Every structure is written in structure tokens, then in C-alpha cells.
């Protein structure tokens, strides 16, 4: 028997996929392609039969003819399922994912324009016991010269990309507002000369927002992320000044002024969940209804599990329940064609709609780099000024392409063996490098403590996606990039 004949007579089996049901329809999420198909009746029956019995083609065709299907429909269905990689015959051959092309063009640079902060949030990864940045001997504030060299580097390394993005970060970003303002002017001028479009964003704790600052940010269409953890009681548990005073009463009037005056780009709230701060719905409703945010995103604090502020496994279960509760509300609103501000669902649905299949968990080191106050280039803003992920200096030789290539080769999904049997890897790809480093001391480790959580979340979002696709498909048009 030839190899081809052996495959032809081998029983069918299901390939790697995640099956789910929504709105009375059976769906498959294919791995690693990230494609989502709705199965018709014959498709569902074939998959069901294969999973119950090892069936050769002959047996399967016989079974389906008995079930009343036409031979031509059976042939076409089997061909489709095989070619779309839903089912297969013979042994599985895992193809190693391809490494990305060298010199991947840069798209975004994050400038940590200060390592100083006027708050002392307990969980902050720049100041807490888990901090990895070594700021001793580094300037407290980035100079215009370093920022301008960083922007030059972005333009050069972006190669043919028509659009680039500069993100300002801290410390508290607005402590270095004069330099931020001159950097925006510089980036606009230089990008115009290079024929590139440039956009800006920043993260702030909102304590230093004044009308003049906000008017500048609105005029320059700067996208803004505001760190806030909910109502006064919850926010002030962790987000405090160095004397222990809560920040809520200082920031909320300023945030309301910001939302009132700045309409030219998105303004989102970013909530860090930690021990004692895990009441998802309460936080969401306060920030949308009482404060006025249109978008709220949640993330657990990155922390060693032994820290007091670590959210812990039990609380994470509560968080997933809270997420699920809000996610179904998102679904209801989506079916009615309304915008819902729970950005965690929105972001996941967008990735599912595109069908992303990630080789890396995020853009760090790939399309995104971080720069510290002294000009050191690093993996991302979370690693700036640490010993890990160093990739050159903006004034001393620019981007170290060798270090970057080495990082990308060792952190590729192909090198993350723990992930190779997980159906959620097209969207997760192993998890945040910083999270892995804080937990396991190794950026290339998969964030295994979140695996069940990530699979649960993606399954939930797939079911919501499936339901929207059947009941209000036009809602999904918003996720199609132009």
C-alpha cells in the first residue's frame, strides 16, 4: 500500500479545534488558523460521528447515506471539512510555526518620560516589591534630546509603515508635561517630513490634569487612558498618595473636566484588580454612570502570589464571574445594536473577528519598544530600565537588532511547548512577558497560572461572538479594519 493509499484508507479524526454552541448553532474555532465556521447539519453530524467512532471514508459515507444525505452533498462536505482543516485522515503532522521576517517594522514607541510619581499605589510594578526596573543613576525625567532621538528611531525603524504611534508613559506622565508637549511638536514635524501619519496616546493618574493640559491634549488628539479603580472606597484602597491619603477626591473632578473638554480621541478607564478590589460590576457601573467613562478595561495586578495585594486564585474566580456577568450584558446590548463600554469583551471580539493567530502574545519587541528616561531601549514600558529585554540605546547605536532577533527567536509560540496543545493559543500565545517574569523569573515561560482563566474567557467570548454573528451580524462590521 502506498503512503497516499494508506492515508486515504485511514480513519477520519477531528483536527485541533474548539467546538462551541451559540444561538442553537454549532461552531468550530480552528487552531491554529483562528477561523470560525458555523457548521450546517451535515457538518455537525460528520464531526459528531468521527468523535464517537473512528470511521474510514467508506464507513462514514455509508452512515450518512443511511441518514438520508445525497452522495454529492456528502462528498462536498467531506472535501470542505478536510480542506479547511476541520478533519483529517492519517497521522497529524505538526508544522513548526514560521519565525517572522527579520527587521519587523516598528509601529509604536513607548516613552517612559519620567520614573517619578506623585502617587504611591501599593501594587505599582514600578515601585512595589516586585519592581524590576533599576532607576538608580538614571535621570528622573527624560530630556527632549532623548525623546527626539527616540522619535527619529521610530521613524527610521518603521521603514515603509505609513502610520506610527507615540505613547507617553511614566511614572506619572504629566510630571514631565513641558517635554511631552515639545515631543508632540517634534514628532509631528518629523513625521510630516517622512510622509508618515503620527498618533499619540498617554496613560495618567489624572492628578495633574488642568484645563490647559486637557486643551492641549484635545487639540493634539491624544488618546488617554486614566488609571482609576472604582468608587472612593475601592480606588483609595490601593491608589494613594505617599502619606496614605486616597486619590479619589483629587482625580474625579479632573476626570469629569477631561471628559467634558476632550472629545477628539478615546478616553478609557483602566482598572487594576487586586485583593479587596474585585467587584467588577460595581466598579464598571460607577465609572460609566457616575464618572462618565464610555470605555472601561480591567486587568488583575501583576504580582508575585505571596504579596498581600495579589488578587489570588479565589478572587480570580470571583473576577471571572463578574466578567461573565458584564459580558452577557455586552451581548444583550450588542444584539440591540448598542455600544457597551466593557472593553475586555470588545478587544477580544475584535481579535476573534479578525481571526488573529498570534506568534507572540503582544507587540513588545516586535512592533513596539519602550525607552527609559536615559534613552535605554527595552522590550516594553514594563521592562524599561531593567536588566531583562535590553535592546540598545537611542543615542548609542540605536536599536540592537541582534538582541531583538534573539529575543523574538526564543519567545516565539513555536518555542513555548506548554502552549502547543492549547486551543486558546491563537489569541493568547503564552501571555504577558512581564507577568511571566514576576511569577517565574523567566520572560519565556507561559503564564500557566492564568491558563484556565484565559480558556474560560475565550470560550465565553466565542459564544458571545457566535450569538452576535447569528442574531445581529451587522454589529460585527465595527471590528473590520479599513
Amino acid at each position, binding site marked *: 500500500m502506498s503512503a497516499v493509499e494508506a492515508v486515504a484508507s485511514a480513519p477520519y479524526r477531528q483536527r485541533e479545534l474548539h467546538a462551541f454552541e451559540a444561538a442553537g448553532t454549532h461552531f468550530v474555532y480552528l487552531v491554529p488558523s483562528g477561523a*470560525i465556521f458555523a457548521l*450546517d447539519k451535515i457538518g455537525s453530524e460528520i464531526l459528531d460521528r468521527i468523535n464517537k467512532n473512528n470511521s474510514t471514508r467508506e464507513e462514514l459515507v455509508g452512515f450518512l447515506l443511511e441518514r438520508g444525505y445525497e452522495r454529492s452533498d456528502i462528498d462536498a462536505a467531506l472535501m470542505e471539512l478536510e480542506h479547511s482543516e476541520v478533519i483529517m485522515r492519517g497521522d497529524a503532522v505538526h508544522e513548526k510555526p514560521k519565525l517572522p521576517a527579520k527587521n519587523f517594522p516598528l509601529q509604536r514607541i513607548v516613552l517612559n518620560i519620567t520614573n517619578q510619581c506623585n502617587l504611591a499605589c501599593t501594587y505599582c510594578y514600578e515601585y512595589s516589591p516586585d519592581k524590576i526596573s533599576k532607576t538608580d543613576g538614571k535621570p528622573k525625567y527624560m530630556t527632549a534630546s532623548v525623546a527626539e532621538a527616540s522619535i527619529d528611531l521610530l521613524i527610521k525603524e518603521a521603514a515603509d509603515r505609513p502610520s506610527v504611534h507615540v505613547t507617553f508613559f511614566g511614572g506619572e506622565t504629566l510630571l514631565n508635561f513641558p517635554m511631552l508637549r515639545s515631543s508632540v511638536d517634534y514628532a509631528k514635524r518629523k513625521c510630516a517630513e517622512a510622509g508618515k501619519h503620527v498618533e499619540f496616546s498617554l496613560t495618567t493618574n489624572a492628578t495633574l490634569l488642568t484645563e490647559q493640559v486637557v486643551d492641549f491634549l484635545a487639540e493634539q488628539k491624544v488618546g488617554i487612558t486614566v488609571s482609576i479603580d472604582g468608587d472612593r472606597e475601592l480606588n483609595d484602597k490601593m491608589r494613594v498618595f505617599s502619606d496614605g491619603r486616597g486619590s479619589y477626591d483629587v482625580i474625579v473632578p479632573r476626570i469629569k473636566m477631561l471628559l467634558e473638554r476632550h472629545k477628539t480621541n478615546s478616553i478609557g478607564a483602566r482598572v487594576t484588580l487586586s485583593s479587596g478590589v474585585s467587584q467588577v460590576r460595581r466598579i464598571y457601573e460607577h465609572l460609566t454612570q457616575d464618572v462618565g467613562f464610555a470605555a472601561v478595561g480591567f486587568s488583575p495586578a501583576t504580582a508575585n502570589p505571596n504579596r498581600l495585594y495579589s488578587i489570588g486564585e479565589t478572587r480570580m474566580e470571583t473576577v471571572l464571574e463578574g466578567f461573565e456577568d458584564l459580558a452577557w450584558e455586552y451581548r444583550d446590548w450588542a444584539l440591540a445594536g448598542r455600544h457597551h463600554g466593557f472593553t475586555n469583551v470588545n478587544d477580544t471580539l475584535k481579535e476573534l473577528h479578525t481571526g488573529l493567530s498570534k506568534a507572540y502574545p503582544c507587540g513588545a519587541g516586535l512592533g513596539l519598544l519602550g525607552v527609559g528616561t536615559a534613552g535605554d531601549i527595552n522590550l516594553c514600558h514594563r521592562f524599561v530600565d531593567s536588566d531583562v529585554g535590553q535592546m540598545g540605546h537611542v543615542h548609542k547605536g540605536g536599536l540592537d537588532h541582534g538582541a531583538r532577533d534573539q529575543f523574538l527567536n526564543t519567545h516565539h509560540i513555536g518555542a513555548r511547548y506548554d502552549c502547543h496543545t492549547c486551543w486558546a493559543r491563537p489569541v493568547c500565545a503564552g501571555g504577558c512577558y512581564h507577568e511571566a517574569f514576576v511569577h517565574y523569573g523567566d520572560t519565556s515561560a507561559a503564564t500557566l497560572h492564568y491558563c484556565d482563566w484565559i480558556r474560560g474567557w475565550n470560550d465565553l467570548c466565542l459564544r458571545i*461572538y457566535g450569538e452576535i454573528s447569528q442574531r445581529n451580524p451587522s454589529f460585527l462590521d465595527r471590528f473590520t479594519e479599513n
Partner: protein
Amino acid sequence: MHSMKPINRKARKVEAAMIAVTGDVQALQLRGGEGKIYYPMGCTLNFTPGWEVDVSGGTAGLCQPVERDLFDCHLGCGWPAQVPDHLNNAPDWTDKCASAANDWRKIDIVFP
């Protein structure tokens, strides 16, 4: 597709790749065999099948006159080279042809 429907954008790419590999152009009277997707030849057929040959392969029992093809290009398709430009240069070229099946001989000849 017979067994499933693409839902997200990646699934549509998978479908397109599959059709590119497995699909084939076939004469109208043929139906897809094992492992083949059926789609007919020529753009007009997608909208008015039956003008080319009948089920026996002959032209005696066509469901549309051959000339119906002209009108599909004229009104439904917008392909610029097939028919006179009825918007600007030859707005009345089909005025005498009320029914293509009966009056097709009356369609004017247009000299550009």
C-alpha cells in the same frame, strides 16, 4: 459551502484558499463530482443560467434567448466594453426592443 459557513474574516480567507485549490471551471450541464465545487463559466451565467446550452447539451430548449446575455451586460453588470454606453452616447439603442425574446433583431447597431 455544503457543510459549514464562514463566520469571521479568517474563515473567509480559509474558504477562498480552499476554493482556489479545489474549485474548477466546468461546462454548465456538469455538476460537481467528488471533491469538486461547481461554478459555471462566464459572468452572465451567474445571473441567468440557461442561455448557453440546454440540459442535453443542445440549443433547442434554452430558457433564455442568446441575446438575453446582452441585456445582462447592459443593465445588470456595468462591464464597459460589452454594450453601448447607454447613459451618455447611446441612450436609446434598445428603444425598439421591448422584449429581448421577441424583438432582439430590432436592437440598434451603434457606431462609436
